[in-house]
């Protein structure tokens, strides 16, 4: 029975009891508890069900490596699945529930899988469910999906907020154990900018538990004194920062590190963000990430109550919790003796220590024996008794095949298979590993480190993370590496005295990958490697037998190490079994790749502040608020939003669009054209430059005149268009499409900086300096004359001319251009007075029937005039020649961007589809994107096509459907009727016509 002890618990504040619930049951704990320690204190050892067989699962570990104790945590907007109980700090009102069972934890229907475990081996799914075909989708897969998965899916919007934080440091120390602190001290004293981060809420790490038990001392004093003094010394240094609850999640190229700070997980009612994702740039990274204890592989090692030896003593020392009254310890190394000593000192019973080593251990074994704990050397566990809780163990000889010598009653087992350095962060960016035979583990190969932008090693592992398994070695290693890191970061560190250390030397460990050594199949199929994913020794052996010899194959075939703990406990044991099965040494088998993050981090933290209002920038024109207030229906255009139409109450969007077109053609329409790009191009070579940028000749444009221009990519395709105005002798103003401004400006600068850098040209993107308003319709001139200040008569300002002055007392530049075919002016005024000017126009225009119109009306009017629209008639595969725009391709120029490309065989191919107008025979509207079919099918059995619709509308002006399209030999087929099958099942017949549907002679715009 696990329970709270009267004494001990250095993390606990017994003055602060807290209440929490588990599966609805109200339980008590203390501030300082983790959810795991509190559950154990309440006798709750079984906490979940495994992934595949739904076997009972208990807490195994005390930290980030925990594979089993995953909880549904919180409720509503703060509900979160798969919360690791061992890293969840307890708080008052915490709600937790176990996962992956139905109807409940004690009785789980899914557990029938366990009954079939004999058949559900590795690779089962690949060999099964093949016939009959439809059953996979409709029966097998749904069943598998239901029984898989772990926690429940959150349902509500996340109630918390998140943020990012960017810092640059000289030395980042990851891990706040004694090695990390010592390394930080050495680096800090050199004046280097140091940041020390620790994932838990406490400094000191493992040594705080182990050394007192081993009676180890640093500088003649207990370890906690050393830790406290070092911490205090670091706190005093202005160049050193220390953070708890901040985990090193990932190491990326060029010294980039992700830090995952959990700010309010332990205090959910506190203000501020829940998590903060640190983006750290460090010149050097010291990884003092410690080591993780390995389980032993014996039959029944997954029964609740079987735990890592280190965890068992952590719970006693840190939380004053015993995992059982009678704990059998089983080990292949000395460290587990500390657990026995801890239990004994806590007044609990240790019926025996099974040491698989024939000779047993060293000083610590002696210490344990002196406490009267029986030690059996060369012995192993043949089998664990019990199903939902350990009831005893059957003992055998390690060297044998599991013949049971005797059984010992116990309610918990503390196991230790040795220690593996935490090499994840070292490996994320390409650090290689080397096999350490003495400790039977992989440690960083410092000769093959991850390298930074200068090609130098930028990660430095220290302490047990570097395989320095004795505290004395760890401190020396840390001091040296701390200095090395500071030096590499450009500082001059002086040696820091490492305090002398007394701590018992451990006897050599002995690798034990299977217990007992000759365990038969019946035992191997009950010996777990991966507790969460249900991978057993027999599974890995089967993978090898079937030829999955690469470690990656074996991993993927068995799912070993693919659970939420990413194999922190199982990888090395699995590798060893695989190597043994392949009859090759472990280093030859190698490891799978370590990928970030070290432990899972919240999506919320990754998204950071970018949610809701600031998910993405929305670009606004000076008149945005007015549009909103007048019922604009918005359309995103790049990051801009433009009014699609202004539906009035009780008016549909479509009706609004129709009204806007009619009103503009018959009276007066106003369009917010501020989003159009405006780029100043100035200099002695500006004309020459624009002749390269545009297909047209721009250098010959007269001052005061405007010209419509086309821009192509160097690959020949039409990319942008707009009106260019010549401002003065060496200055041009180029208009681009909405949202095209930045890319066109970038495009210009690219050519100027990287190809024609000797040309004297400056550009400036002045798009947002101006609010631009299109004043369109028969009454356009009237309203401008009424506002007054500028002569806009036909004589004073002819078509395709511009002039500068004042209108309504506001400085303005008026362009006499038309995209609608109507009498039209585009007026640019300072953005700071855009709204005032717009309102002045609306007010003065009232008597002339002024109404705003949106992008859809704009589109329809340009289509009625047969003007192309970038993005509709073009899609990145269309060249000006396809659109009958030859008139815009200057013949006088021997070069412009795209000219050479347009000479390639396929671009000159006469069978390219060409732009035409399309008129449905019955006046209906052609479906958007419809294709015109031709006879027969192609070699791949697809229906042949001969054209497609590029834009299609109902024209209120002509009261019929009009469209533009690209059609094979289109311009030569005027009057011909072709067929467009719609996805609605109808076939639309349309006549090929001239694309100009309205005012072919352009009389209206020239008045």
């Amino acid at each position, binding site marked *: 029975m696990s329970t709270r002890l009267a004494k001990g618990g250095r993390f606990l504040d017994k003055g602060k009891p807290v209440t929490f619930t588990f599966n609805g049951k109200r339980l008590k704990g203390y501030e300082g508890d983790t959810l795991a320690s509190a559950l154990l204190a309440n006798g709750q050892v079984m906490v979940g069900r495994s992934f595949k067989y739904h076997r009972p699962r208990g807490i195994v570990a005390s930290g980030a490596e925990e594979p089993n104790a995953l909880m549904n945590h919180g409720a509503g907007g703060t509900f979160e699945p798969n919360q690791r109980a061992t890293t969840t700090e307890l708080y008052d009102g915490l709600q937790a529930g176990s996962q992956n069972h139905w109807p409940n934890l004690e009785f789980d229907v899914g557990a029938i899988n366990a009954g079939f475990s004999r058949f559900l081996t590795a690779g089962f799914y*690949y060999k099964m469910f*093949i016939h009959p075909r439809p059953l996979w989708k409709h029966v097998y897969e749904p069943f598998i999906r239901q029984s898989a998965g772990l926690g429940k899916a959150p349902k509500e*919007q996340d109630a918390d907020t998140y943020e990012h934080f960017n810092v640059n440091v000289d030395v980042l120390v990851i891990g706040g154990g004694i090695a990390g602190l010592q390394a930080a001290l050495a680096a800090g004293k050199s004046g280097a900018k140091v940041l020390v981060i620790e994932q838990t809420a406490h400094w000191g790490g493992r040594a705080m538990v182990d050394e007192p038990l081993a009676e180890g001392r640093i500088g003649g004093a207990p370890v906690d004194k050393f830790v406290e003094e070092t911490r205090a010394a670091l706190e005093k240094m202005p160049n050193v920062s220390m953070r708890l609850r901040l985990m090193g999640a990932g190491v990326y190229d060029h010294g980039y590190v992700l830090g995952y700070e959990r700010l309010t997980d332990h205090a959910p009612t506190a203000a501020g963000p829940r998590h903060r994702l640190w983006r750290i740039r460090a010149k050097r990274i010291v990884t003092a990430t410690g080591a993780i204890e390995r389980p032993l592989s014996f039959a029944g090692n997954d029964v609740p109550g079987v735990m890592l030896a280190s965890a068992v003593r952590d719970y006693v020392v840190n939380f004053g919790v015993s995992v059982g009254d009678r704990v059998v310890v089983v080990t292949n190394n000395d460290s587990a003796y500390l657990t026995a000593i801890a239990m004994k000192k806590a007044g609990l019973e240790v019926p025996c220590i099974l040491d698989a080593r024939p000779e047993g251990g060293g000083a610590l074994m002696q210490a344990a024996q002196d406490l009267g704990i029986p030690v059996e050397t060369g012995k192993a566990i043949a089998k664990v008794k019990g199903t939902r809780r350990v009831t005893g163990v059957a003992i055998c000889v390690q060297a044998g095949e599991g013949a049971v010598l005797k059984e010992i009653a116990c309610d918990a087992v503390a196991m230790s298979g040795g220690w593996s350095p935490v090499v994840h962060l070292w490996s994320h960016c390409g650090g290689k590993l080397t096999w350490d035979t003495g400790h039977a583990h992989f440690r960083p190969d410092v000769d093959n480190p991850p390298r930074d932008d200068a090609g130098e090693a930028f990660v430095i592992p220290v302490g047990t993370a570097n395989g320095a398994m004795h505290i004395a070695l760890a401190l020396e290693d840390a001091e040296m590496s701390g200095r090395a890191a500071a030096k590499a970061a450009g500082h001059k560190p002086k040696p820091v005295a490492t305090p002398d250390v007394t701590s018992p030397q451990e006897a050599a460990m002995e690798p034990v990958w299977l217990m007992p050594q000759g365990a038969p199949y019946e035992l191997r199929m009950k010996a777990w490697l991966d507790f969460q994913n249900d991978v057993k020794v027999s599974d890995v052996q089967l993978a090898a037998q079937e030829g999955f010899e690469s470690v990656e194959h074996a991993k993927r*075939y068995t799912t070993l190490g693919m659970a939420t703990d990413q194999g922190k406990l199982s990888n090395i044991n699995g590798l060893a079994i695989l190597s043994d099965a392949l009859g090759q040494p472990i280093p030859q088998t190698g490891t799978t790749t370590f990928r970030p993050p070290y432990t899972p981090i919240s999506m919320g933290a990754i998204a950071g502040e970018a949610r809701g209002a600031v998910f993405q920038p929305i670009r606004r024109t000076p008149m945005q608020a007015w549009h909103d207030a007048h019922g604009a229906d918005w359309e995103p255009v790049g990051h801009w939003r433009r009014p699609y139409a202004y539906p009035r109450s009780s008016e549909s969007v479509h009706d609004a669009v129709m009204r806007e077109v009619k009103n503009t053609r018959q009276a007066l329409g106003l369009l917010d054209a501020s989003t159009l790009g405006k780029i100043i191009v100035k200099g002695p070579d500006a004309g020459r430059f624009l002749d390269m940028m545009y297909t047209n000749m721009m250098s010959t444009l007269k001052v005061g005149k405007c010209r419509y221009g086309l821009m192509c990519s160097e690959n020949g395709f039409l990319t942008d268009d707009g009106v260019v105005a010549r401002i003065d002798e060496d200055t041009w103003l180029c208009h681009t499409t909405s949202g095209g401004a930045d890319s066109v400006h970038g495009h210009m600068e690219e050519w100027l900086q990287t190809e024609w850098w000797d040309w004297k040209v400056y550009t400036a993107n002045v798009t947002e300096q101006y609010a631009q308003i299109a004043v369109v319709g028969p009454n356009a001139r009237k309203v401008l004359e009424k506002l007054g200040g500028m002569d806009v008569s036909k004589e004073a300002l002819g078509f395709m001319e511009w002039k500068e002055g004042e209108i309504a007392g506001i400085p303005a530049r008026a362009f006499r251009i038309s995209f609608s075919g109507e009498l039209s002016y585009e007026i640019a005024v300072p953005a700071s007075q855009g709204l005032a000017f717009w309102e002045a126009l609306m007010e003065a225009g009232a008597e002339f029937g002024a109404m705003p119109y949106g992008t859809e009306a704009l589109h329809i009017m340009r289509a009625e005039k047969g003007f192309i629209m970038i993005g509709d008639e073009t899609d990145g595969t269309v060249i000006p020649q396809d659109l009958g725009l030859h008139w815009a391709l200057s013949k006088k120029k021997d070069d412009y961007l795209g000219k050479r490309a347009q000479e390639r065989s396929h671009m000159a191919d006469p069978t390219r589809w060409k732009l035409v107008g399309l008129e449905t025979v019955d006046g209906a509207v052609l479906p958007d994107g419809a294709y015109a*079919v031709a006879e027969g099918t192609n*070699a*791949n059995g697809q229906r042949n096509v001969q054209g497609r619709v590029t834009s299609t509308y109902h024209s209120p002006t002509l009261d019929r459907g009009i469209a533009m399209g690209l059609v094979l030999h289109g311009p030569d087929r005027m009057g011909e009727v072709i067929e467009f099958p719609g996805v609605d099942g109808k076939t639309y017949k349309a006549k090929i016509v001239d694309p100009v549907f309205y005012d072919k002679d352009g009389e209206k715009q020239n008045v």
Partner: protein
Amino acid sequence: MKRYSAFAIAREGLRQHTGWERAWASPEPKSSYDVIIVGAGGHGLATAYYLGKNFGITNVAILEKGWLGGGNTGRNTTIIRSNYLQDSSAAIYEKARSLYETMSQDLNYNVMFSPRGVMMLAQTQHEIRGYQRTAHANALQGVSTEFIGPEQVKKLVPIINIDGPRYPVLGALWQPRGGTARHDAVAWGYARACSDMGMHVIQKCEVTGIRREGDKVVGVDTNRGAIDCNKLGVVVAGHSGQLADMAGFRLPLESVALQALVSEPIKPCMDVVVMANTVHGYMSQSDKGEMVIGGGTDSFNNFTQRGSFHHIEETVRALVETFPMISRLKMLRQWGGIVDVTGDRSPILSKTPVDGMFVNCGWGTGGFKAIPGSGWGFAELIAKGDSPLCDEFSMFRFREGKFIDESVAAGVAH
């Protein structure tokens, strides 16, 4: 080859699984083969499989420098769809999709093809028009897709936020028979079938040179000796340029990193695959329960199989906005692969300037879904010298300016 079946499982279950054979043999290379395929990824193995199945060519070696299926085949987000715009793309991807339908039975290996449906969200007017165009094209290409409205999107994906403040969902292009498959199983299933036909799948065999006599290829040099062949198919995504160099010609390719990530597993909450191109992210839920997430590529050449984290941020940001509930899920693992991208982002399945040598590359971010169709067409190209599925994908199209541009329809690839 012993067939896989429920009976076999029952039999082996009762005798401690001692009867299972190797899924594929691991032979020593012979001195010569009719055809050598370089690269034992999905595309290479599928090519070999259809050489045998459709053309009876079984004296074939598939050479793999690492472990089979260890490249992008084992690193992608397993999406299968064929709702492409251009005829030549739709043809090869739909061929692939239809072969996926029966792959488990064809290979006697459960590749877990799950035709759960793929939808591409339309979140701007421009996207609506683009996808309506694709729907029209697909109807004529024999690809079954439809454009559906927001309500139906919500019905198919209850966890989606269809009226997000920034980009409300205006509709979607829906391919009901698109879906996912177990990526490793595809490679393993093909390898097992090839091995069963007597082909040699040779792992840890790196090609170090390509031997020619005049304009004709006659074999390859490898770290396990020289091997002769009459025909050579190079299918080594990410490293095609290096192989082309060995043969003395160049390819219009660039290699960049593509990243993906998975969440911790949760109980089923999303039954279809959703791609949101405006905000650059896509997501599906694996049978294990993980949310499988991908996004855009890095924009610089990179052979490290490590990407830049800001792409992960952009993708997750987009998906948290689209699926608010994932905010409190956790990223379990992120990884990267090397993809090679051509000038028009469409693949190359082509003859080369070297007689008898063929290349299959440039799948960019979309290769997995094409594996069987690519193998089918490329096998035909190698066996017969031409294939309707491959014609348009010639490496010489860039010279003529005859591109196959899909960006028209989809912003992000996958």
